[in-house]
């Protein structure tokens, strides 16, 4: 791959305990016992993962999986750590798309010049994920495979029309469109023996503008509602636009201009579309926000984000 992700400080220190590959890890405080496997190649990883299909989980940055293990909400028998597989990290370009290795860290993406140029929406959204320390370990593949209904990156993948490459030992490689990838809360189209290896995202075309914004309880918290938008504007009219939302359903949600009733509308009157969208969604309630609150955020955030996307488009920049 072209641009290499900056070297990360030892993945195992501090935070994750240093594990000896192949050992039974009852020595690890908090986590339930599991066998730790650390393959050096993708081929080996696919094989180990397939061998133990239902009992195995792959470990990427661990920022979601390790807390799940610590709370004993997940109990895999085998943990296949992908962090020694260099071929899964990196950022390159091919056929008008940016190709990102699944193990590329969120922080590496945030600081990549290539990403800034081709996919300016991505760093904007990344800055809302946790804190730099978390982003330095968390990976793009991990976030997408995790499928958190309040995460930022699934919405970005949807709105930018990402293609996700999954591989398995027995069935080889397949490509899944982001639209078909997120199936429900923490549930994706990945099969038990598959590993997400690469994410291909088409360049944001010149003439389009994009924006991501969210409302969370504190800086770095998961979004109560997050909105990603990409728009193309011609002579003050919307030629096309896509909006993806996070935090509003059991998974990230995508709406295109047709569904939003915005095609051919003037770039500036989004309130009605936002109201319709808010009504048709049935957002969840939790300690951080009631369902009516989230609906209200949809009404207020969608127009704001669309306006900024249109302004960016009109400014000719693609930011």
């Amino acid at each position, binding site marked *: 791959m072209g641009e290499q992700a900056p070297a990360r400080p030892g993945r195992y220190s501090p935070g994750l305990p240093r594990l000896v590959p192949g050992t039974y890890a*009852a020595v690890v405080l908090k986590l339930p*016992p599991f066998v730790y496997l650390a393959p050096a190649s993708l081929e080996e990883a696919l094989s180990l993962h397939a061998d133990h299909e239902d009992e195995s989980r792959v470990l990427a940055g661990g920022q979601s999986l390790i807390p799940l293990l610590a709370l*004993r909400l997940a109990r895999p028998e085998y943990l296949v750590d992908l962090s020694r597989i260099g071929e899964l990290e990196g950022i390159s370009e091919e056929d008008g798309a940016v190709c990102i290795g699944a193990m590329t860290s969120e922080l590496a993406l945030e600081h990549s010049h290539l990403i800034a140029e081709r996919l300016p929406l991505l760093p904007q959204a990344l800055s809302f994920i946790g804190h730099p320390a978390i982003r330095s370990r968390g990976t793009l593949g991990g976030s997408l495979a995790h499928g958190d209904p309040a995460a930022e990156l699934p919405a970005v993948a949807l709105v930018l029309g990402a293609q996700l490459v999954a591989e398995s030992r027995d069935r080889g490689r397949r490509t899944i469109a982001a639209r078909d990838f997120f199936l429900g809360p923490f549930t994706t189209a990945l099969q038990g023996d598959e590993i997400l290896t690469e994410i291909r995202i088409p360049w944001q075309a010149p003439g389009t503008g994009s924006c991501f914004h969210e*409302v969370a309880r504190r800086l770095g918290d998961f979004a109560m509602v997050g909105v990603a938008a990409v728009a193309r504007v011609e002579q003050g009219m919307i030629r096309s636009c896509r909006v993806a939302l996070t935090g509003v359903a059991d998974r990230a949600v995508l709406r295109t201009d047709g569904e939003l009733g915005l095609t051919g509308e003037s770039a500036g009157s989004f309130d009605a579309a936002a109201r319709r969208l808010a009504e048709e969604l049935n957002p969840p309630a939790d300690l951080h926000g*009631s369902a009516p609150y989230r609906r209200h955020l949809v009404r207020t955030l969608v127009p704001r984000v669309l306006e900024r996307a249109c302004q960016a488009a009109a400014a000719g920049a693609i930011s």
Partner: protein
Amino acid sequence: MIAGRPPAERYTGSSVRRTEDLRLLTGRGRYVADIQVPGLLHCAFNRSPHAHARVLRVQTDVARRAPGVVAVFDGWQMAKLASAAGGMMELMGETNLPSFSLLATDKVRLVGDPVAMVVAETRAIAEDAAELIEVEYEELPAVMTAAQARDGSLPPIFEDLGSNVLFGPDQKVFGEVDRVFAEADRIVKARIAQHRHQNVPMEGRAILATFDQATGELVAHAATQGVNTSRQIIAAQLGMPLEKVRVLAFDIGGSFGLKFGASREEVACCAASRELLRPVRWIEDRLENLTVSGQAREESFDVEAAVTNEGEILGMRVEMVIDSGAYPGFAPGIISTIQEMIPGPYRMRALSFTASGVITNKATYVAYRGPWASETFVRERLIDLVAAELGLDPFEVRLRNLAERGQPPLRMVTGPSLAGLTAKESLLRMGEIFNFEEFRRHQAAMRAQGRYLGVGVATYIEPAPGPRPETPPTELEWARASLGEDGVVSVFTAQMPHGQSHQTTMAQIAADQFGVDFEQVRVVVGDTDQVPEGFGTGGSRFASMAGGAALHVSRQLRSQVLELAAQILDVSPATIDIRAGEVVGDGVPDGRLPLSELVKLARAAAAEGRIPQGTETSLEASFGFDGGQGGWSGGTHCCVVEVDPETGRVRVDRYMVVEDCGEVINPAVVEGQIRGGVAQGIGAVLLERSAYDEWGQYLSSSFMDYLLPTTTDVPNIEIEHLQTIPLDQDVNFRGVGEGGMIVAPPTICNAIADAIAPSGAVVLEQHLPPTRILELMGIIPQPA
């Protein structure tokens, strides 16, 4: 130079760098988890998944057989080793206590209640084995609200108490309540809610217990606010003589009221060590800490204020209900302080105060920084409601009602003298620092642009230690001081610093009073074999009580040392002095004698019988201080907020403090205490809530759900110290640990209420997350 008169103060009053900083800021602090002991065992608890259930069967054999497991105790086995009777509440004189055990025997009473304890070679093994324990339960309906506790429809949580009402309603009347209500032009009524939230120290509860078979002594390294208190409880619950228990404490990762005495799990840990004859450690994890360590402040208040049209508050009627949670806790003990303090620094003539307490299937009510703080919240919110009702400015209403300093001093209607009160000065000074008129103009201009800005003010006083002699101290605070042959003055205190910088501030006082360099004072804490009696750190007790004890004991030791030096050197005590660690003055050989040399000379002289009868030859002194003339801490806080009507988020734009904590020992330490308290107040209002669902499942059991303020949520806090009114000849330091947390919540709530008032919102609660703000503003529907 007159012996006995302290030299000029060099340290007291200045921001001396903290002694604690080097070790704490470089990660070299020593917490219970850092202690290395050979043969150490670790424990983990199996805990109840139910809020309320009968325990039918506890099966521990699979866990017991797991490799690396040393022992498993269920409730009955543990009950044979130690009792839960003789705990903190008995120590505090509470009666009407139910019987229960360290680990559940018959029943579990909250989610997370400990049911069985696994002791193993590693913590990981203990945790894995704790999951292998199978418990059969018969679920009972959970009592989750005060209404459910009071209506008697649900089974009692403690059978022997017979009901879920813990006490009350108990009424106390001060002044002529009916009369002032009859005289009043208006009566302003409100039901005000104080939500449940909690301490959340960085280090949870922790203990390492080592029973020594040879000596029959148990040594416990504990995370505690007072080693003596922990010792008393451990000894009582293990049935050991006090002298056979030693409690040690090193650095403590915060507490805020949580770590007093010894909790059920901690005592179980001691019992296990005695039984297994090996050291046993328990470090509470975050899930345990958030779920079961204890929670604070769930109270509701029905209040009425009798007011005149001019805004004079004549009196109040208050009915409060406190939710004590499951096991005996701090709730009954705090009522009398809430009752006494609710008039605050205001001139009201009558008060009727009725309190009752209930038991619910939630975490036990514990003390949390300013445990009685709801009196300030309720009163300061009510004052703003009165102002709104009368169309007056809340600042003006406060000003009209604040008590003046008089001779003889005014008294609160509940009794205490208001001698030395500076509440009015603090409010007036705030009016100079912050231009309210200009703000009102700005606010109106912003409002016209659709923006919601608000300002809030709150004023309070805190008995730290309170006026004397009306409120005699619960106990004297002792300090012992000694001069060692290294020339170092050691000061021993039962105070147990857990973030308050006592080792710095006490050394500042002692160094000045004794006449040595700051570096030449050692403050000894955290060892029951060494420290004097005293319950420990709490109730803003340090500054006046322990600071005063240190002041007096250092002076006493200084006189003793000077007298001894005079004898040895054969000079008049009046001609010599102690300065910078040396005896100086006429007749001293070479004009100066280092203290270390003096100690050697004194030892030799004593051995040779050269010290005349009547000379105090001991290089040690002890002093028990009653608080002297005491006095109030207090002040006024003011903040400016902006509420975003699109998101319901609140931004604190400016936060100002005018405070009086008496003579300031160390400004940096005082300001740190205030800032920390204000940060917790911001957390309480905007972020922190200990939430349960209706079945008693705890919803705030991780930091994803229990949100603490971070640096991005806390603004710069501007602090000004007011000129204090000294009441005592010697000791005018007053406690400051709790005040920030007492007055910040009403300050912030008042500002938010002011900001959203144009929408018709009335704020009657303390917790105001974004959803609630938009509900109050009528922007989104309220829950049914």
